[in-house]
């Protein structure tokens, strides 16, 4: 609890900042009044452009943070992160195929479903390759292979598109961005994120038990195959939905659990909620940074994330080496 409250407050603060910062550059009071009334050009900006962007940042960040924490808890490996091991890249591949074949326009939820399918394949493959114990080497090798394959196929599909703009979009799908997203994107992503969150939330007790090892967890009455299924579907739903609307945003699921693990007493179950809030705060902050550093140039979120994430990643490796 002592972690969740400050994190919630931080998220609220960043949401507000996200609503108030933008190229239109209106005053604080005027912006909030326009958000409330929804009148005039500023009302349109606040309600239809900034509000969905802020909400989507919150949802995407929470999804990625929660997914990272859940995967790390299950595999008992701090390197298991959706962006790093190719789950996001596979979700992006699913989304790109759906968009380019026209499947995405077949019905409203077709785009997130396609991304989810890509993510399910990747998570399933990772769990099979890494094995139940989740050895670091197998996990990372499988992840690198899946990332590379999904990334290459995404580039191929976009290069083959008859739309000349599509080839430039490789950057978006690999780096992620929240620019010019609307309530439509919130609406198609939110149901999948909610379903995924519900599945992962229930996995907390199982993840706590797993820290004692598989046998001990089983003897505590944890149904391991069921836990695994929950995890695969939950992570795929959340990462799939987030990637379908915002592209693949890396490092969130790596950095946030890493920073918060100590504060929750290293219990994976308690880390879930904290990581969801922490992920939301990180993505909101990064999206604000993107708008402040290079306004109007649509700097990709992944760039900022990598600047934060890479040092943490290197620190992790350093600590692991010294630990041995």
């Amino acid at each position, binding site marked *: 609890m002592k972690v969740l409250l400050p994190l919630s407050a931080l998220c609220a603060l960043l949401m507000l900042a996200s609503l108030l910062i933008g190229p*239109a550059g209106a005053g604080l009071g005027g912006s909030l009044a326009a958000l409330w009334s929804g009148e005039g050009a500023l009302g*349109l900006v606040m309600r239809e452009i900034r509000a969905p962007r802020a909400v989507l940042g919150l949802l995407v960040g929470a999804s990625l943070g929660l997914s990272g924490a859940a995967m790390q808890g299950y595999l008992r490996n701090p390197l298991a992160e959706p962006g790093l091991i190719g789950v996001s890249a596979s979700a992006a591949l699913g989304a790109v195929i759906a968009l380019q074949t026209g499947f995405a326009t077949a019905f409203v939820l077709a785009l997130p479903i396609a991304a989810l399918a890509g993510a399910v394949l990747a998570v399933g493959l990772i769990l099979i390759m890494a094995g139940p114990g989740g050895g670091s080497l197998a996990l990372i090798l499988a992840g690198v292979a899946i990332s590379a394959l999904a990334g290459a196929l995404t580039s191929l599909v976009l290069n083959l598109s008859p739309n000349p703009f599509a080839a430039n*979009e490789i950057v978006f799908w690999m780096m992620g961005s929240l620019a010019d997203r609307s309530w439509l994107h919130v609406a198609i992503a939110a149901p999948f994120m909610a379903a995924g969150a519900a599945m992962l939330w229930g996995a907390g007790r199982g993840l706590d038990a797993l820290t004692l090892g598989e046998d001990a967890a089983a003897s505590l009455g944890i149904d391991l195959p069921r836990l695994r299924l929950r995890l695969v579907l939950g992570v795929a739903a959340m990462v799939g939905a987030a990637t379908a609307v915002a592209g693949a945003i890396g490092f969130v699921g790596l950095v946030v659990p890493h920073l918060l693990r100590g504060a929750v007493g290293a219990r994976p179950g308690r880390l879930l909620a904290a990581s969801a809030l922490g992920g939301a705060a990180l993505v909101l902050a990064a999206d604000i940074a993107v708008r402040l550093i290079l306004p109007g140039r649509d700097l990709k979120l992944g760039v900022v994330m990598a600047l934060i994430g890479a040092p943490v990643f290197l620190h992790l490796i350093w600590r692991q080496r010294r630990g041995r």
Partner: protein
Amino acid sequence: MVRLAAALVITLAGAAAAEPQRVVSVNLCTDQLAMLIAAPGQLQSVSWLAADPSVSLMPDQARSVGLNHGSAEEVFLQDPDLILAGTYSTGPATEMLRRLGMRVETMAPATSVEDVRAAITRMGALLGQPARAAKVLADFDADLAALPKGAPRRATTYGANGYTSGPETLSGDVMRRAGLVLLTEGAGQMALEQLVMAAPELIVTGSRYPTPSRAESVLDHPALAAIPADRATVPDRDWICGLPAIVGTAERLAQ
């Protein structure tokens, strides 16, 4: 030395004045301008883009002339005595053709109606058809003079990635001739929220490709649809090139 230079100039001028018989064009805009001005049979081939109805106004005529893909080998084998290219088109190919001793003339893309007038005259000179060019120019000038002045609405184009056309572009000049007032001083990207705040009275959008792209998704944003402004759609082919047909585009925008 001076005499040598003078002799060279005279020789070059003489070569330019002779009417080329086998002309190949490798740029969408020179393609169409050449087809308007060249005498029948003078054009050997035009670029394949000129046959694409999404960017060309003269696809049928282009197909009847014959098509090339702008590669040096293909063009060389057609043995042209004049090659028309854009300043930015197929650089390595035109360089190679020059090295092979071919006469390559490049034309810069038009960025204003005045540029179009100059291009018509220059094309006439290059093709050795000044009389035909003068006729096209006279018709163009008459159409320009007859252009109705529309209401001075504050207008802007809005396209993929939020790009707008500034005053130094052909589309900007065409809009100005249609009586519109451009919203932006400089060309470039404009964030959707800046567009909303600028409160335009007319938003001009262009062609869309059949498959979706993230760059164009900004054009589907509900906030864009909610701006209380008039809408006009100008297909890219109607002002991508500096052709006399831009008068028709200006006329439609003036209404």
